[in-house]
């Protein structure tokens, strides 16, 4: 599967809730393979960005499945960890802002407040339940992806914040966007 199977705004499916996975069938395993290959293919087309994680809704399959890159500092590493029916069972600390970007929201980066530590419960490919505790950037990744399963995008979390929106310019630098013009009045986003 290629990067073209990744849906982007204004596709309304991105604002829909995904359904829980029951039995892990071959078709579920195929969805996961497609998610992986779409992320890697997207990654190859980007010189200045890396695809860190993806939710199934982003390839237009509305199941509660997310995949997270095992080593997102190394673009050569194409391994993912799979989380089926992921849930945040505990959060810790005070939310803090940092940059976030999404494969389904072209060009925009936003400063989003997220908890610094979360505990996630999910099932693996064999259907076995497991839990992980994530901190820092990885905690942010889980909050972003589990939001996808609930039809929430990172821009929805900051939609009234006039100074939270940025874009990557042609020199690879993050530049603040004009909130009224580029964000509020942008019908692709809302």
């Amino acid at each position, binding site marked *: 599967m290629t990067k073209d199977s990744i849906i982007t705004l204004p596709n309304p499916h991105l604002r829909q809730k995904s359904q829980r996975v029951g039995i892990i069938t071959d078709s579920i395993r195929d969805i996961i393979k497609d998610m992986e290959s779409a992320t890697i293919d997207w990654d190859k087309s980007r010189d200045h*960005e890396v695809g860190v994680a993806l939710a199934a809704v982003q390839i237009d399959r509305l199941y509660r499945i997310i995949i997270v890159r095992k080593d997102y*500092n190394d673009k050569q590493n194409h391994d993912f960890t799979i989380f089926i029916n992921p849930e945040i069972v505990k959060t810790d600390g005070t939310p803090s802002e940092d940059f976030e970007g999404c494969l389904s929201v072209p060009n925009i980066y936003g400063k989003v407040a997220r908890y610094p530590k979360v505990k996630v419960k999910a099932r693996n490919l064999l259907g076995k339940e497991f839990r992980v505790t994530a901190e820092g950037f990885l905690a942010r990744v889980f909050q972003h992806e589990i939001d996808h399963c609930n039809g929430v995008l990172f821009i929805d979390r900051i939609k009234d914040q006039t100074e939270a929106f940025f874009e990557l310019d042609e020199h690879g630098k993050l530049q603040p966007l004009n909130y009224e013009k580029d964000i509020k009045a942008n019908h692709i986003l809302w």
Partner: protein
Amino acid sequence: MKKISKPIIFFGSGPVAAKCLRLLSKDFKVEAVITKPQPSYHKKPYPVLEAAEELRLPILTARTSVEQDKLFNDFTPKSDTAVVIDHGIMISKDIIARFPFGIINSHFSLLPRWRGADPISFAILSGDAQTGVSLMIINDKLDEGDLIAQREIVLSSTVTEPDLTRQLITLSHQLLAEVLPRYWEGKVQPFPQPDKAPTYSRKLKKSDGMIDWHQPAINIERQVRAFLGWPKSHTRLGRVDLILTATHIVAGSGTPGEIVLRDRSLGVYCGQDLLMIDRLIPAGKKEMKADAFLNGYRKELA
């Protein structure tokens, strides 16, 4: 979710550069390595060339600053940031201008202290209590650019140059892995070097390695540690040429260069105090302790 992850161009030629490149390639995509070519007289593979080949990174070579400029005539890097470590070729203004985020030099001292080559040896030689790594955005002057990070480590009074170099390579990599992404996201702003009087180091010469016994023992003891990698600390005692590898200082006074021979220990008077030799390498032999040396060479020293 996606995140900013930029490729970099790496400029580096020496052995320290090779070690840094290996570490760096784990955390960053290296688009190309710019390094000196292998000279025909050099039999062993050049460390950076060897590392880049192993890591399967594209290699571009230049002997001189002029050749380096020419390289960039027909090469347009995708990277908007470069890192330079232990390179040995000045990088021109024109090349610097090609990188919107600049060329970051990981310099192994607390700038503005020890600008120039060999900052590590000079920090030990002058008995500095601390040293560290500075990440500097190079400009066309020698080590005068703004910094994006600086981190210090304590210099122990027994550390040798090879040990300190290893520590600084690790620190340098930690700093780059941590600070570069923050710099790309605009969370780290460049700042001028601290407003202190700069000091300058220089490239060491082979002749720096000859011990001058008129120096105070404290200087020679530091020299033995600072020059342990190269050019080492050479002297001739009696009829034996040797290299000192570990020494310590004892109070005392005598004619500089005069040997103090005891049962199991060996010392030499210096301009001030007495330098006791703990370990040494006699010409053509392996490193040994002073007492082992005395067993075989005592007569030669008289």
